[in-house]
């Protein structure tokens, strides 16, 4: 599993952990406690997303350099057709993986942003999802 995927899973785990913690200590929790747990988790998610986004950007730069090299070597006649096809295939595969990761971090960030800007809505959704928390 890549570092990036691990980070995404960790951020998602944190979200669940925050919800679990809220559920376990529900009787003692106020709306402010819930909101604090939600914003804390969302804040950590933004940091995880920032780190992951930087990794993706670095990988995009490497791919950019590889594609420029393929293009320039092909134009100069220094690349056999077989090698070019192989390198393009690898580049395509890498690109597809990075696009998926980009989508994942975008989703995660949107979720964190929403939790930070609409905390009370997220809290109500959580309470609706776990009715036992309301007691």
């Amino acid at each position: 599993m890549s570092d990036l995927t691990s980070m995404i899973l960790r951020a998602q785990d944190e979200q669940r952990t925050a919800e679990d913690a809220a559920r376990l200590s529900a009787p003692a929790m106020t709306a402010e406690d819930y909101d604090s747990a939600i914003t804390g988790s969302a804040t950590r998610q933004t940091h995880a997303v920032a780190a992951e986004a930087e990794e993706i950007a670095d990988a995009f730069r490497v791919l950019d350099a590889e594609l420029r090299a393929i293009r320039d070597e092909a134009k100069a006649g220094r690349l056999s057709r077989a090698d070019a096809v192989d390198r393009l295939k690898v580049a395509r595969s890498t690109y597809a993986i990075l696009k998926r990761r980009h989508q994942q971090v975008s989703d995660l960030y949107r979720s964190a942003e929403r939790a930070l800007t609409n905390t009370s809505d997220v809290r109500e959704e959580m309470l609706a999802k776990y009715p036992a928390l309301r007691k």
Partner: protein
Amino acid sequence: MSDVAPIASGAPVGSLPRGVVPKHTMQPRKVELGVLSAHEQNLADLFRDAENAVVAAGQAEQQRDALYATADEALAAKYGVSHE
């Protein structure tokens, strides 16, 4: 590439409800995911350029091979030899 803007900063996103003191001290990070989208589009363009270049190189390779074959035939017809 150095011309790419940073994608994250320490600027906060959103705010806590009034009167709520956060239990954590870490501030949210603002992430400019549009920079990644720009990278992605740029790469899509580069793929097109690279693939076009590879196709053109392949065609040049075929033309060169055809030229060798023609030259071989001409040599063989005139002298009964080939360059191979």
